[in-house]
């Protein structure tokens, strides 16, 4: 009997409280996806080459998972409290019919159990799919062929952790709702449907003043950000604090006054104001301002965080991609830092002796001497090291660069960046001088660079241990493009995964809170819709008004957050552009799609539910 009632209630929940299930399912899906990172193609690749990034990612994701679990738990508890409040009358009826508090609690526990099982199952299935999508996304960001690494995987440990974590949350929900019922007094439950709302209206001209003040605050915050740039504005407290304060205050004022401001504007055009239910819709919006503006501000900021984090993690990745090749211009570079005391190494001889055939397995190799700078001979005080023009041009030729020519007596001053390009990070400020100027200078270092002939990974497996063995005699610094690449890839993945994880969590939190708030207001509005219907308003108009109200609540925070994000991205791109090329179109697109999918899902579910409530069925 109880299970029948519970199942029936759950089925009704499907219809009325899709948002609750949506949140649970998204939560499970998110949690599983990021706990199953070890199954990601890119992670498998990194793990194979024993990159330390894998462990870092795992540890950080575990830490963040705790945070995410707490956020999701709060969200689910909030949603559950909201549902219980809506069902006060129903629960009161059960008690009135003679069910004991214990029986009603048991009913709720049963319902939570059923809902939990459904959302766990659906969420895990979605999670496996989401894992695959994420895997495709990350693999597509790397320029290597990793097709063998892509596949649908089910991670049992991740599933176990998800079930454990959400099981805990559901237990908490059961306990709290049981507690709430056992403590509830029948009179409160029965009268739970009564609402007590005091409408306070303020003169509309206040709205206009507040709106202008809000716009000024925002303009100030934007100006601060754009004039000082992202790096300064975020790091320097005297700039950061006023900027954030102005931004938040501006957002708050806008949400507080926008409805009044719009009402004022529309009222000057009676043709628009008195068309259909516009008048009603606008008044509904303004009447909710005092309960909604704070939450809308918070939601706008959460959305901004979600977008900012997601977009910059994806954008950062594309920038890192560019730097991989500039930081390591050759497949492998060895710097002999003890050349001044121990002399040059004959790499060809050494490798041949160790059974490695440089002629076969390397497509090119080059050994370049770097000398101590003696301004008396070279005529330049630029840097502590010099190299000969012909050597420099040979290096450039090896990386398909343009050769340079020097007039007699001219010196090419390399900054840290150009030096890295040419020699693979010497760690010295160097100058390029004419060949005859280096005659007689003392040898400081030797740099040996090579490109592989065959498959980089196979070649490195043989070559790198041999080169590392040199370190027993000489002081060497070894850099391979592949390891630089894998390091970067690890960092990329870290930024990407954490960014997406947090971004999604914020997004779901924002959307779910908004949706629940709108549903609750939609239910309060049913009486008003009944009046409209009696006045002869067509169903179409009534449901349109209901959807418009939800749309206002959902789209306004999104709109303002988009404006904030656009300004923020502009500043962030200026910063990233200093480091490398920016390609934010792609990242913005991905962010937009992600946002649309999740936020749109919530908007749709809420709008449909509110429309159903308005239809009074």
């Amino acid at each position, binding site marked *: 009997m109880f299970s029948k009632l519970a199942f029936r209630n759950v089925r009704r929940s499907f219809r009325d409280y899709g948002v609750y299930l949506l949140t649970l399912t998204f939560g499970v899906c998110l949690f599983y996806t990021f706990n199953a990172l070890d199954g990601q193609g890119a992670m498998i690749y990194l793990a194979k080459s024993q990159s330390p990034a894998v462990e870092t990612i795992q540890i950080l994701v575990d830490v963040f998972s705790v945070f995410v679990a707490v956020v999701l738990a709060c969200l689910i508890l909030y949603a559950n409290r909201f549902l219980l409040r809506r069902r006060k009358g129903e629960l009161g009826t059960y008690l009135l019919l003679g069910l004991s508090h214990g029986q009603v609690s048991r009913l709720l526990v049963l319902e939570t159990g059923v809902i939990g099982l459904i959302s766990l199952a659906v969420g895990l299935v979605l999670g496996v799919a989401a894992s695959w999508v994420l895997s495709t996304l990350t693999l597509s960001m790397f320029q290597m062929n990793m097709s063998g690494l892509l596949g649908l995987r089910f991670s049992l440990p991740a599933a176990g952790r998800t079930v454990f974590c959400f099981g805990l949350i559901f237990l908490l929900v059961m306990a709290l709702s049981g507690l709430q019922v056992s403590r509830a007094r029948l009179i409160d439950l029965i009268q739970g449907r009564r609402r007590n*709302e*005091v*409408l306070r*209206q303020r003169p509309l001209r206040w709205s206009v003043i507040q709106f202008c003040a809000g716009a000024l605050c925002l303009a100030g915050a934007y100006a601060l950000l754009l004039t000082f740039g992202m790096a300064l504005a975020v790091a320097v407290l005297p700039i950061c604090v006023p900027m954030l304060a102005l931004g938040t205050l501006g957002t708050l004022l806008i949400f507080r006054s926008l409805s009044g401001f719009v009402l004022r504007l529309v009222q000057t055009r*009676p*043709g628009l*104001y*008195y*068309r*259909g*239910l*516009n*008048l*009603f819709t606008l*008044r*509904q919006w*303004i*009447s909710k301002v005092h309960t909604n503006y704070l939450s809308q501000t918070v939601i706008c900021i959460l959305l901004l965080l979600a977008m900012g984090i997601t977009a910059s993690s994806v954008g950062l990745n594309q920038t890192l991609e560019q730097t991989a090749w500039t930081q390591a211009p050759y497949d492998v570079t060895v710097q002999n830092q003890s050349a001044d005391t121990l002399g040059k190494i004959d790499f060809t001889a050494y490798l041949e002796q160790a059974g490695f055939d440089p002629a076969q397995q390397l497509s090119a190799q080059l050994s370049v001497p770097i000398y101590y700078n003696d301004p008396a001979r070279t005529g330049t005080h630029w840097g502590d090291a010099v190299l000969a023009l012909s050597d420099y041009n040979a290096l450039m030729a090896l990386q398909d660069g343009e050769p340079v020519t020097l007039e007699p007596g001219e010196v090419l001053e390399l900054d840290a960046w150009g030096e890295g390009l040419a020699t693979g990070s010497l760690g010295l400020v160097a100058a390029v001088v004419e060949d005859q100027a280096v005659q007689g200078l003392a040898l400081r270092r030797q740099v040996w660079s090579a490109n592989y002939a065959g498959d980089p990974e196979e070649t490195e497996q043989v070559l790198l241990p041999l080169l590392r063995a040199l370190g027993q005699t000489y002081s060497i610094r070894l850099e391979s493009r592949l390891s630089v690449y894998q390091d970067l890839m690890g960092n990329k993945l870290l930024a990407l995964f954490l960014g997406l994880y947090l971004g999604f969590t914020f997004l779901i939190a924002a959307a779910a809170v908004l949706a629940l708030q709108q549903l609750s207001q939609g239910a309060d509005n049913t009486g*008003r819709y009944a*009046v*409209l*219907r*009696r*006045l*002869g*308003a*067509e*169903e179409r*108009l009534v449901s349109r008004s209901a959807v418009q109200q939800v749309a206002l609540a959902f789209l306004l925070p999104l709109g303002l957050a988009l404006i904030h994000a656009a300004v923020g991205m502009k500043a962030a791109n200026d910063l990233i552009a200093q480091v490398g090329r920016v390609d934010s179109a792609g990242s913005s697109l991905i962010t937009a799609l992600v946002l649309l999918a999740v936020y749109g899902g919530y908007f749709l579910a809420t709008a449909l539910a509110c429309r159903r409530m308005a239809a009074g069925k």
Partner: protein
Amino acid sequence: MEELLRADKLTRIYGRGSGRALALDEVSLTLEEGEFVGVMGPSGSGKTTLLNCISTIDRPTSGSIIIDGKELTGLRGKELSRFRRERLGFIFQDCNLLDTLTAFENIALALAIVNAPAGEISGRVGKMARLLDISDCLDKYPYQMSGGQQQRCAAARAMVTNPALVLADEPTGALDSRSARLLLDRLEELNRELGTAILMVTHDAFTASCCHRVVFLRDGRLFLELKRDSPDRRAFFQRIIRVVSELGGEMEDVL
């Protein structure tokens, strides 16, 4: 006078099988243009069901309702909404003003719903407000007005669209006697000046006494009809009281 409403053998049955209840049993009623008719009867006699059927909120199980030569039971969806907003006005016991709108906007909304030209709205609302004596509280929200003002505002909302028929369900039910009297005076005046027909359900003999005609319902049947033949309201009131007391125990709850 032209016939405005003809309800013919209206029957409304709730439920089915053994649990079925007969709320209206072949009730026939006609209303002429500009008439002010009261419906009285004990609780459960079918007053509100009758009003709901006529107002198209409910559908009779059988029988027909013709308003302005239009058969209502055949109307669906859009046509029904259109008919409701263009030809009918409603006044309820709990006045049902929208709490988020000012009095002016509440009345204007009714006009907006019938797509009245925006330029006319202010003038029509103002005129109706003067007739109902609520000009000075047009900018107030419902919670800032007294019960009587709210109910008159609801009456203005019902009448501003020039409906052919206003349906009132216990309009004075929640009012003190002074406010009730003021509202009734205004309704009578509107009925006289604009020629709007009013069908009013009431418990109260005094309220009923301002009608031209009062019909009594019992157990879903029409069993008596009183016509007011003189302008003397007091005499009509006495006749209604007599009927009510003759009904004795059955209508005890009415007084």
